[in-house]
């Protein structure tokens, strides 16, 4: 087995190449001694089988950023047969420095000049053979986006990779990167020599499509409204298409349950049957129901990200978000969280600074997602007059914003973001349909693999809590969850939340969709109208609003916790997110409930 590393600067289409090269068969693997996951795939190239590892995009081999240190540690600990270097042809004037640094490592390398299709537009002409002479490695112009539909470059690249790999018998490991380092002055001299000899850049490219688009999209006055319009559009696309799909999917799952599973399991003891269907099957259903939204979300994210607009959003929102210790991209993700927190948290991956990313992940769960909206719409209609209800709903959105703001301000010291913000604003481009699909599919695959066990275990535990011991009515005061409901009364009574509502909150840990179902079980009403009446009979509006505030602020659902833990790779951080949100929920509900009672409501 031979080993290849793919290395390149950010925004060079490195992942596009990696996906095309490996046929999107890659999976995230934990590499020994690495704290981060690297994408890797095993494939047959010519007659040789090889592991291909996608390293994070870096600017400088000697750098100090998290990604750069990952690459250094990887190179110093992993013997390699070949390094594939990916650079952007258009930006060759500066990116060649990375190839010059890699040349010093004495590991066989191939330089792929990607995005060759864009070079003529920017007046960049490159003589690959001459560069190859300077660098003493094969240099090939190609387009990872269009593959063999663009010239012969891609096929030539694969041939060169196969040939070098075939010739290289033994892997080579770098002992110490700093021994191979080259100082800035010498780097600049060598770079200039190659540029003089092999590269021609015309200066007449200033009126490209990108320049013209930016005049509108980054306009000092028009820029922000256009940005909000674009976000609103994306939000609408994801959730107007996603919600019916989600409903369709759960309808299908219910149908299977009623038509197939229940008859099959009829002979089983009712406890076991309940466990398998109500616990396990419904648990899997909870996970599966997220797929359409995640898929659609990442369709849109692929477009926003690959088009270059995401970096522009940072430009537009940075002045405001910087004061909160965040940046423009955090804002985009928080907005997305108003649909569903799970993909929004996954979306923070585009941020490279860990502090920034953690703070963003702490803030996103306060975005009022569509699941919570269902609960609020139901409760506001049941307890408020039609004139007041929309205002009540709107006030919950305000609380959602305020909670995010307060959290960012309180925790920005804990998650310092020292990275000075410097972001490339790449030219606008549109990804191919295939790129969009591959991206979304890879995300869905990861979500299923990592979240499955966690969520299903959670659902099963909640089901057991509600059904044990076996000889009492489900979800009644005598069950384990009922006892917990009683036990937490001293904590929740000051918020006006009675033990029945407390059990619903426990249900809500799984998913907010379950809160309504939970209330229905507890109040013993099967339809919405009956349930509304039953609740209105038992609690007043102050209690209801306090309950809604708590529901809004405490951790959204098990899926969110699972994703928080997976993305932060820290159980401590996930715990902090849970504890802080519950604390904030308690304090807010307490202040509201006691305040309202004091005022005589």
């Amino acid at each position, binding site marked *: 087995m031979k080993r290849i590393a793919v290395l390149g*600067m950010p925004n060079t289409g490195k992942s596009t190449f990696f996906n095309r090269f490996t046929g999107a068969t890659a999976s995230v693997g934990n590499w020994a001694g690495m704290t981060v996951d690297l994408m890797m795939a095993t494939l047959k190239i010519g007659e040789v089988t090889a592991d291909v590892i996608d390293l994070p995009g870096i*600017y*400088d081999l*000697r*750098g*100090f*950023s998290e990604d750069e240190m990952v690459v250094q540690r990887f190179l110093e600990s992993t013997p390699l047969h070949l390094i594939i270097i990916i650079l952007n042809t*258009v*930006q060759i*004037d*500066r990116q060649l*420095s*990375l190839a010059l640094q890699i040349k010093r490592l004495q590991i066989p390398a191939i330089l792929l000049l990607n995005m060759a299709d864009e070079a003529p537009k*920017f007046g*960049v002409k490159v003589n690959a053979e001459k560069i190859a002479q300077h660098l003493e490695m094969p240099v090939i112009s190609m387009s990872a986006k269009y593959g063999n539909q663009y010239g012969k470059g891609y096929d030539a690249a694969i041939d060169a990779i196969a040939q070098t790999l075939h010739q290289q018998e033994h892997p080579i490991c770098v002992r110490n990167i700093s021994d191979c380092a080259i100082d*800035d002055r010498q780097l*600049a001299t060598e770079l200039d020599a190659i540029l003089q000899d092999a590269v021609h*850049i015309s200066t007449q*490219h200033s009126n490209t499509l*990108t320049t013209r688009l*930016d005049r509108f999209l*980054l306009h*000092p*006055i028009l*820029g*922000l409204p256009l940005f909000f319009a674009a976000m609103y559009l994306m939000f609408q696309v994801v959730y107007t298409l996603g919600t019916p799909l989600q409903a369709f999917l759960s309808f299908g799952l219910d149908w299977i349950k009623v038509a197939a599973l229940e008859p099959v399991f009829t002979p089983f003891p009712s406890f076991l049957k309940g466990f398998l269907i109500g616990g396990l099957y419904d648990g899997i259903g909870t996970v599966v129901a997220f797929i359409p939204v995640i898929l659609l979300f990442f369709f849109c994210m692929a477009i926003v990200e690959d088009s270059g607009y995401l*970096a522009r959003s*940072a*430009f*537009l929102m*940075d*002045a*405001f978000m*910087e004061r909160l210790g965040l940046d423009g991209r955090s804002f985009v993700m928080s907005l997305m969280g108003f649909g569903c927190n799970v993909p929004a948290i996954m979306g923070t991956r585009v941020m490279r600074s860990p502090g920034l990313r953690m703070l963003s992940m702490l803030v996103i769960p306060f975005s009022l997602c569509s699941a919570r909206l269902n609960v609020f719409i139901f409760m506001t209609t049941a307890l408020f007059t039609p004139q007041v209800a929309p205002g009540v709903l709107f006030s919950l959105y305000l609380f959602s914003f305020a909670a995010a703001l307060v959290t960012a301000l309180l925790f920005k010291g804990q998650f310092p973001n020292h990275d*000075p*913000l*410097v*972001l*490339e*604003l*790449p*030219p606008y481009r549109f990804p191919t349909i295939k790129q969009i699909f591959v991206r979304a599919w890879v995300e869905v695959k990861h979500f299923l693999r990592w979240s499955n066990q966690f969520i299903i275990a959670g659902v099963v535990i909640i089901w057991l809590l509600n059904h044990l011991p076996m000889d009492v009515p489900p979800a009644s005061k005598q069950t384990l969850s009922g006892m917990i409901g009683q036990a937490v009364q001293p904590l929740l009574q000051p918020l006006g939340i009675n033990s029945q509502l407390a059990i619903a909150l426990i249900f809500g840990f799984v998913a907010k969709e379950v809160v309504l179902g939970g209330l229905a079980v507890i109040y013993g009403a099967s339809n919405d109208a009956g349930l509304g009446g039953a609740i209105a009979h038992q609690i007043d509006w102050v209690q209801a609003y306090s309950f809604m505030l708590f529901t809004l602020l405490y951790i959204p659902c098990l899926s969110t916790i699972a994703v928080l833990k997976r993305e932060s790779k820290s159980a401590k951080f996930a715990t902090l997110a849970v504890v802080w949100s519950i604390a904030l929920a308690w304090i807010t509900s307490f202040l509201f409930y006691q305040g309202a009672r004091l005022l005589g409501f």
Partner: protein
Amino acid sequence: MSVSHSHLAALKPGHIAIIASLNLSPQFHQRLLALGFRQGRQVTMLRRSAFAGPIHVRIGTTEVMLRRRDAQNVNVTLVRR
């Protein structure tokens, strides 16, 4: 054509300048170097965002945004208004 010394954050949209020196932390210096910010290179100010937000510049074929307070440490010589 007048020649004057200034820093990157002070340029107005459309101004073209030559980088004179970079007065930054080693980490940030290295990052800007990799993005093409070298002594003697030409940089064009494209726009400045509202509310004292970041600036948008072009250097070679690369366009970059950076925060104003970071850009203040990039000294430039103005060559064209």
